[in-house]
């Protein structure tokens, strides 16, 4: 199983904001344990999807140099948690602060126009938070960005197309 909790990015504005979509389907095994005969997307995995959205935005903002991990959820409110197969979620993230040690993003999860949850996520750069321990390999996060098709939609601050760093313009 791959730890991918979004399907693709639809907006990725460098150092600013991103939106990603997640289609919830009955093909996902975890739904059938949560709960048998009443499958619902666990709220914790919705948070994970939002964290992937915001975390990759921060990763790009620091020039792909810092591995990013979710460090703290200072606040988050779910207005609704009943998310079922067939629902299409949109995760929205806006970078509020970028530091050497990490960053903070304000985030939302929506189903169409319906706001399901909102809050703030705080990320740490792995090198500083974990004394250089490598929890995942170099290049993993960039591979995630390619899988999530960031470079199909990504734009730089000036509106130009964001290139894959492996293939700079």
């Amino acid at each position: 199983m791959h730890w991918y909790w979004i399907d693709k990015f639809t907006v990725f504005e460098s150092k600013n904001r991103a939106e990603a979509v997640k289609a919830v389907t009955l093909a996902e095994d975890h739904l059938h344990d949560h709960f048998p005969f009443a499958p619902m997307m666990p709220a914790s995995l919705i948070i994970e999807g939002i964290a992937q959205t915001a975390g990759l935005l921060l990763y790009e903002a620091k020039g792909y140099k810092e591995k990013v991990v979710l460090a703290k959820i200072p606040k988050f409110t779910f207005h609704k948690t009943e998310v079922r197969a067939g629902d299409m979620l949109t995760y929205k993230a806006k970078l509020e602060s970028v530091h050497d040690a990490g960053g903070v993003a304000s985030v939302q999860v929506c189903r169409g126009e319906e706001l399901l949850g909102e809050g703030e996520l705080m990320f740490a750069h792995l090198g500083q938070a974990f004394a250089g321990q490598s929890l995942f390999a170099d290049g993993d996060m960039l591979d995630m960005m390619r899988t999530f098709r960031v470079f199909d939609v990504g734009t730089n601050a000036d509106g130009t197309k964001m290139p894959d760093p492996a293939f700079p313009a």
Partner: protein
Amino acid sequence: MPSKDEIFAGVKDALVEALAVDEDEVTSEATLEGDLGAESIDLLDIVYRLEKAFDIKIERGELIPEEIVNDTTGKFVIDGKLTADGITEVRKRIPYADLTAFEKNPLVQNLATVLTVKDMCYLVEQKLGA
């Protein structure tokens, strides 16, 4: 520039949000780690909220001078403790902090425990006055 009371109120709001503590726990003398339960990762959250509340920029190292406490050359840190040079350097970097108790057993890991609410107010005042 906001008054000292206004700065204290802003710092208090930031700490209540970042640390989920009650307002009456945030006294001037309260230590961030010991009294308010802050962990190292909370410092980034506190910095973010102070920056937002007061429209200031707090650079890395202005709360904990990491390049000093992470020294591996033996100049500032030996066996996990700050040397005399290390303490002098830390005093320069965070002049607002009271290091009197820390100096008796200057374990690097304890440096963050000296920071108080009053220190945060002082840091904000310095930033706003600069």
